[in-house]
């Protein structure tokens, strides 16, 4: 009898988008070395077309109203992790005083990584800057001290080591998007590749 490579366990779990497999672990995927960022030096910015930059130090950021988030995460490499617990500041809170006519955002990370998103995917309680995972600090290899969290899109959009957002008029591609990945990345529509 031939041995058949089983691949991964494919569950009929309605929480799993098409082509996804369940994992209990938290795989690490990164396009570069893990930057080490001291919260003393950390800052987060939103830069608009008015050349106005909104900035927060770590202490200012931590003082903002935060929320507990329970979310499923879906990696484009086809693992999904259900019910992960985070704490973070909603992008709605950070954008409260920001005026922009642009509809798109480029997220920039410490270490140089970028990813593009439509502004509407970041608002209305669907995206956060997370600074806690599973009740503790976020490990540097998982994006600490703070990462973008956009759980309704594939996880490469949830930029680790987030540094700031730059408003852009068009949907200019970020790092992986420039290299063949989808501009939007909705796991339920399997928007994996361009």
């Amino acid at each position, binding site marked *: *009898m*031939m*041995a*058949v*490579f*089983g*691949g*991964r366990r*494919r569950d009929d779990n309605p929480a799993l988008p098409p082509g996804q*497999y369940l994992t209990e*672990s938290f*795989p690490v995927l990164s396009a570069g070395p893990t930057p080490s960022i001291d919260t003393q030096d950390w800052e987060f910015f939103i830069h608009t077309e008015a050349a106005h930059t909104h900035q927060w130090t770590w202490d200012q950021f931590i003082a903002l109203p935060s929320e507990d988030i329970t979310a499923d995460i879906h990696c484009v490499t*086809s693992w999904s992790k259900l019910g992960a617990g985070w704490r973070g500041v909603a992008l709605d809170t950070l954008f409260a005083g920001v005026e922009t006519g642009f509809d798109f955002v480029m997220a920039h990370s410490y270490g140089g990584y970028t990813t593009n998103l439509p502004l509407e995917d970041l608002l209305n309680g669907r995206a956060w800057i997370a600074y806690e995972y599973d009740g503790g600090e976020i490990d540097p290899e998982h994006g600490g001290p703070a990462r973008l969290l956009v759980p309704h899109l594939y996880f490469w959009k949830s930029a680790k080591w987030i540094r700031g957002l730059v408003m852009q008029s068009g949907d200019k591609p970020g790092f992986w998007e420039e290299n063949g990945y989808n501009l939007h990345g909705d796991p339920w529509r399997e928007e994996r590749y361009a």
Partner: protein
Amino acid sequence: MSRRTNAWLTGSLARAHPLTASARSITFAVPGWPGNDPGHHVDVRLTAPDGYQVVRSYSIASTGTGEEIELAIDRLPDGEVSPFLVDDLELGDTVELRGPLGGWFVWRPEQTQPVQLIAGGSGVVPFIAMTRAHASAGNSIPMQLLYSLRAPCDAFFRDELSQPSATAPTTWHYTRTVPPGWSRSAGRLTVKDLKSETLPPEQVPLTYICGPTGFVETVSRALISLGHAADNIRTERFGGI
């Protein structure tokens, strides 16, 4: 030799034997395999019935012009591919292969620099091919191997590396458990170990290092601190997924 083909070839398992409690030598018959140099690797692709595919790179333990290639696979506890190759694959089963790959990490008998090989764990596999090629070429260029492993029972190809006809001497180094009567205590390779157990910078050796990322990182840094030029050090890290 070693013309690269641009397609996935089909290999069927022709022979297999255990190397350690967690590792297995597997030899594939690969029609169309163009032969390979010592140090080349091969990409192995597996496809599940639902179409899910994975690709992994493995060093080749064999060398030469034949249409068979020998791999030596260590089972990683959380691995996706290695448990299948070590535990499940049966004689006659097929996988897809592309290669030979990666000319940067090969050694060819016509090279003239003395050669130091440094292996961490299953990183010894490409060096098996190199020592085999060195022996069969009757090469007089000095080649020696420093093999770091956790315990004596983790050794791959110990008999082959220890036999009198081996032309590249092996220095064994144990990080957790030493054999009875061993004169040194167990511990990770230090700069001092590397200074005493490897060819010195004055001989301008070409050094090949293969092992887990942390091992390769530590050893290559230590060699540079001992005065070896970065461009005389070739590394092959394996990730462990």
